[in-house]
């Protein structure tokens, strides 16, 4: 009469502070009556350039979005006197292209909301300063841009504010901090937009949201609501639920409203993790971000996916080396539309490039950033989806500068740098948001093909890639190739014998393959690594019950129940184990508790009836 819920395993996402967004990176504000860009007003060098006629349109279009009170920029650029007060500085930073912050080179595939000044616009500002910063005819000045105050998309349906603010010290190195926002919803909801308000925008360099459906980040907090430090974080997920949205904020970001059918799913119990990069300002700052969520009633019908190319294993950069090259390439197994791209490296990254070589042999530049700067990293959304047919080879080529000449080098003198999660380590990541197209829905979720191809590629590329083995195993397990999955999990555990998630997953797979006696050692290893691991206790209880050790099983289910008192399955299984031990009254109360949590459990009702009969017959 013992019915147990199947074992639990997890998908690992190297969430690498990179992952999951739904906010666009574009930086052009919600301007009403946005001035036309008229830099090419065809003034010849002899003509007089004035602020009102020539410079104001450029500034209002490309600078004022951030350079206004309450926004990220340190001073306002909203009128003649504002601009005059920074005129020479504006010439310098536009000529060096430090401002506006837009890293990619111009290319054939256009990005949405490009924030790049033309050469003519830059020359115009320079000429204006050379000619003495003349204000000009008041009739020429375009209307000052008008901005939406407060939430850009109007009042959100749900506002979440960080429990505990972070006090940023006045000095020191950049800080990476993660705020956890539990989402108080009772049922699955669909999200069309999320607006990130990172606290004081002047000190938050960028922020992004990761979706944690299993509460796996909470274990990193010293106390609930405290948040935790770290630049790159890992999220675990129990179902095949690949990251699909790029939820990113940087100065100037306008919240991105997903097109209909591309909503983000939020389940009961989901946490949103806001990963922030903060820069000290010279005085103490209190940072308390909030998130505005906009729901839609339209569930997702199009399921995009984030494909990650990476080659961190090749990052072993000798000190002093100026041009250390890392490449990776991936052959697309299906037709996709490329929607957005997000390159990521740390402080040694210099020249970053991604190409697509189509099956017909033509090559397109997907992105080229000749002077990488982590401080201005962004998600770049294409103006139009880019069709990449099956057989397209996507490749990346990142160049790193670990010499003394790189001022951003975290070590002085330069030291050997390897791949890793700390800001002093390096990364070689490229995220592509792709939407599968031209697929036959009868043949299953097309994203599975992408995920499997990617995991196989990663395992071949780097047999020591823990996450690749782990995710390939999870993929195989979901296709019910359980023995192959066990093999991959074993390789993963071999690489990280102390990893709680991998040991738990291997144990769960062995239970599923009817080898509970082999599972126990891995589940015990998982619990040694993480004593308060709900899944580990649950699965160990399951494995012990499978060997008729009901006392041991009951003990594990009790520990699991203590960790998650609202879990109906744990209560049901605890009841079943107690029934096997002959403790009928206790068994009955746990069955009733399970039904109280979730009345819709036929198996529990069946168990309860069987128990009642057993009790009546005595």
């Amino acid at each position, binding site marked *: 009469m013992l019915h147990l819920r199947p074992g639990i395993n997890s998908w690992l996402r190297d969430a690498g502070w990179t992952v999951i967004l739904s906010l666009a990176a574009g930086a052009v504000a919600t301007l009403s009556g946005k001035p036309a860009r008229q830099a090419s007003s065809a003034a010849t060098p002899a003509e007089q350039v004035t602020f009102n006629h020539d410079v104001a349109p450029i500034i209002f279009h490309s600078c004022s979005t951030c350079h206004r009170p309450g926004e990220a920029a*340190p*001073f306002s650029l909203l009128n003649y006197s504002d601009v*005059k*007060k*920074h*005129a*020479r*500085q504006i010439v*310098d*930073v536009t000529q*060096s292209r*430090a*401002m506006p*912050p837009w890293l990619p080179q111009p290319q054939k595939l256009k990005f949405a909301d490009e924030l790049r000044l033309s050469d003519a616009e830059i020359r115009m500002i320079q000429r204006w300063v050379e000619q003495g910063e003349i204000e000009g005819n008041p009739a020429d000045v375009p209307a000052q841009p008008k901005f939406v105050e407060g939430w850009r998309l109007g009042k959100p349906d749900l506002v979440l504010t960080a429990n505990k603010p972070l006090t940023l010290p*006045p*000095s020191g*190195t950049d800080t990476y901090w993660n705020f956890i926002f539990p989402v108080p919803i009772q049922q699955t909801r669909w999200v069309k937009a999320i607006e990130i308000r990172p606290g004081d925008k*002047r000190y938050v360099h960028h922020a992004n949201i990761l979706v944690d459906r299993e509460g796996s980040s909470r274990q990193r907090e010293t106390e609930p609501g405290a948040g935790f430090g770290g630049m790159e974080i890992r999220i675990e997920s129990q179902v095949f639920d690949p990251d699909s949205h790029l939820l990113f904020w940087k100065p100037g970001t306008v919240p991105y409203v997903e097109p209909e059918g591309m909503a983000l799913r939020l389940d009961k119990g989901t946490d949103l993790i806001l990963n922030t990069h903060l820069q*000290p*300002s*010279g*005085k*103490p700052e209190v940072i308390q971000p909030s998130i505005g969520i906009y729901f839609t009633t339209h569930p997702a019908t199009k399921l995009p996916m984030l494909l990650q190319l990476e080659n961190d294993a090749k990052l072993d950069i000798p000190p002093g080396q100026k041009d250390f090259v890392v490449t990776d390439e991936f052959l697309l197994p299906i037709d996709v539309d490329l929607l957005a791209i997000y390159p990521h490296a740390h*402080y040694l990254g210099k020249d970053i490039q991604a190409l697509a070589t189509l099956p017909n042999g033509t090559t397109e530049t997907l992105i080229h950033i000749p002077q990488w*700067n982590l*401080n*201005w990293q962004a998600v770049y959304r294409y103006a139009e989806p880019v069709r990449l047919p099956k057989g397209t080879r996507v490749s990346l080529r990142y160049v790193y500068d670990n010499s003394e000449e790189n*001022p*951003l*080098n*975290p070590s*002085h003198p330069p030291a050997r740098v390897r791949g890793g999660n700390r800001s002093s380590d390096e990364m070689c990541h490229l995220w592509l948001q792709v939407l599968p197209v031209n697929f036959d829905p009868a043949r299953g979720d097309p994203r599975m093909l992408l995920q499997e191809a990617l995991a196989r590629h990663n395992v071949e590329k780097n047999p020591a890639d823990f996450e690749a083995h782990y995710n390939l195993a999870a993929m195989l397990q979901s296709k019910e190739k359980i023995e192959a999955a066990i093999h991959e999990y074993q390789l993963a555990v071999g690489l990280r014998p102390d990893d709680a998630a991998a040991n738990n997953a291997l144990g769960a797979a062995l239970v599923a393959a009817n080898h509970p006696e082999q599972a126990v050692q891995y589940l015990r290893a998982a619990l040694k690594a993480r004593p308060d691991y709900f899944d580990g206790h649950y699965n160990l209880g399951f494995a012990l019950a499978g060997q008729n050790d009901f006392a041991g099983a009951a003990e594990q289910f009790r520990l699991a129940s203590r960790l998650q008192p609202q879990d109906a399955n744990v209560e049901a299984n605890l009841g079943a184990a107690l029934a096997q031990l002959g403790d009928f009254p206790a068994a009955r109360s746990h069955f009733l508790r399970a039904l109280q949590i979730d009345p819709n459990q036929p198996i529990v009702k069946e168990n309860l009836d069987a128990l009642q009969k057993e009790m009546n017959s005595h």
Partner: protein
Amino acid sequence: MSAGTMLLRITSAATVLLACTALGFGQHTAFDLEGHVVDPLAHSSKVVVLVFLRRDCPVSGRYAPVIQQISKAYAGRARFWLVYPDKSDSAQEIRKYLTEYGYHLAALRDPEHTLVKLGRAQITPEVAVFDRSHRLVYDGRIDNWYADLGRARPAPTTHELEEAIQAAFAGKPVHRSEVRGVGCYISDLE
């Protein structure tokens, strides 16, 4: 005028320059936050450091803990003044800024750019270091923390201001490489 004095003037151009500037103080002046005219070089036999700052300059802001720390390290031997060259800055605004950034240093308003010229400042933040005889021995950046706007090193690897202060104490010449600061132009305020 004795021959000895003549000789001194000829060999020390900076002193002559300073003397001229000091003469001009009657017309062009700097003020403390109470509105009193102040000559930071007068009545002092200490090394004097002028630190030029703009309130609207984020690089000036980020340097506050550095400036505070260096001034503390040489307290008693070097007199630090914060100089605000933006003529639209009120004393009240500067006081607020000092409190926010935790400064314990005296501040001056320099609306006519008298001190800017005296210290040859071009950018904020920059510093001017005067030795005990009020000769300008160094003007330029504090250190090389910033390589460029938006590109700061994790920590500076050169320390020009501290080297200049120590040279001024020792009466030694300062190695002058004429490196300007990275930040905001003072000339944009004119």
